[in-house]
């Protein structure tokens, strides 16, 4: 349990940063007037 703790934190960190980068990518593309779908492909 204790040994696996860093792995859990690592997975949480990866998920957190994936959410962060996905959100900023969406916001930046939309902000430039380039509408995208949830898969990031052009609308």
């Amino acid at each position, binding site marked *: 349990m204790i040994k696996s703790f*860093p792995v859990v*934190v690592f997975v949480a960190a*990866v998920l957190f940063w994936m959410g962060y980068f996905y959100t*900023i990518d969406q916001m*930046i593309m939309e902000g*430039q007037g380039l509408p995208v779908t949830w898969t990031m*492909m052009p609308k």
Partner: protein
Amino acid sequence: MTHFEKKRSGQNKWTWFCLFVLSVYLIPDIAVAAEQGVSATTDGLAALLPAPKPTRADYMTVGGMSSRTIIWGLAQMHLFLAAFVLAVPFFVLCIELTGTLTGDKRYDDMAYEFMKISMAAYSFTALVGGGLAIALFLFYPVLMGYLLKVFRGQTLIYALLFLGESVFLYIYFYSWKALRYGNLKWAHMSIGLILNTVGLTLMFIANAWASFMMSPAGVDQTGAITGTVWAATRNPLWNPLNLHRFLANIAYGGAIVGAYAAYRFLSAKSAEVRAHYDWMGYTSNIIAIIGFLPLPFAGYWLMAEIYAYSQQMGITAMGGVLAWLFIIQAVLIGTILLAANYYLWCGLGRSERGQDYTPYVKYIAIVIVGGFLVWVTPHSLILTPQELQQLGGPNHKILGPLGIMPAKNIAVNLMLVFTFLSFQMFYRSSRVATVSWAKQGQMFVVGLYIVGCLNIIGAGVYGYLTPTVYKVGASVPQVVSTLSIIVFSGLIDYFMFKGSKKREVRWGRMSTRSQYALFVLPVAFTWLMALMGYIRSSLRTNWHVYTIMKDNSPEAYIPTIGQAGNIITAITLTFMGLILFIFWLSQLGSTEQIENEDAVPAGERP
């Protein structure tokens, strides 16, 4: 004084300092507002006249010499020197503030030594600047007359600011030891702040003139003055150029003082002196990297604004003959990044803990060398008909896709991220985190690097799958990803290593070879600046002021790449010679002859 009074006194100092900062930064606005008032009343019939059309007879030649080459050389030399003398007081003030806040006297001594080098260069800057002004009025009088009409009283403000720069520079330098402790130190830093404000304003004004020639504003299609001086100043390329030059100056200034530190390190005779100059070289390298990391993004903004202003101008830069120079630019930037990283890797040997990070160096090297190779891959090759036939077209089947921007954007961003990683490894090599959440923090940093790099690669690949407008748009998330990695991992490290156990850093324990990396930086930077200066200037093609005033001189053409290469190299070598002279002067200033030197045996001389 009670603890409360001491605290209050400290707060008062900060309040005064902040108020002072605010008031000083209002000065340029006041100057511009005053100038606007002047221009509004001095417009008259002259304002309605179109820009003059110089004839061949309006261009003077002296002794058959090339007027353009003389101006080119002087302008480039002035820019090198000005970039250096404007940048040094900026980071010197930051180092001085760090020294005051931390109470570490070493920072103050180092800042003073940086200023000493800058002082030796200052008189050359003024001399070359004066020479440039005379040469411009001699060889291009009609153009200069027109620019004076457009910018009117601003030219006088420039002259006054130049005087102010000299006055505050001398006061700042010569009062260093007289205003060293307590409140007087804050007064000294305030002088430094005024000096930097004046210096930056000077640069912004000069940038307005240069950018006006590329993207004129405040005038109509014939060149007749229709707007205020502020309208001409705030032309479309002014701010991108301001930001680009500001960052480049810091990187350039850091690289030059780094070479000075390396020069003194190599000539040092005692371990103590070597340790001092090793620390100075390390700090200089960090300054150069801090200035350099955001520089490609500022360059990207400048180029985007050039395209937005005139697509023709953008195509001349990136799609015509000048495009090949961007490959040379890539080689030089790659050289800078390799040298800066190599120096940081050598620095890992300064502490015992640094050895733990050494195995990772090879992976960073693979990314940087790989990125460098992608960046220098051209899209279209210059080929003979036979080669063209053998290849089956102008593009290589496998390497061709690496020649376009999505691949290069991935390469550049990863190179910057991994350069920051090299710095982060060195930062960590002398510290052991003691906070309870160190392991979790480390996981967050590793996760940030992995996801951030994948996002950079993904956004690049995305460019191959989508229309051009999306391809260009995807470069912005790449930039933000790079900056996010740098900022967030830097912040996590800051809090994670706050109050950490320090490990000894043996300053001076550096190889001789590592110091040559510090010499590479200013040489590559100087060459790069000269090259990019040639490109920026060539974008105007056969115009003095783009689309407004034609260049009718015998040299109204873009010089060939070979000719430009020779001139750029000659200017770079001349500047390097001058810098060596400045280093020698600075060293001479701190050398003292011993009385009855002949009586002291050679071995016992210091």
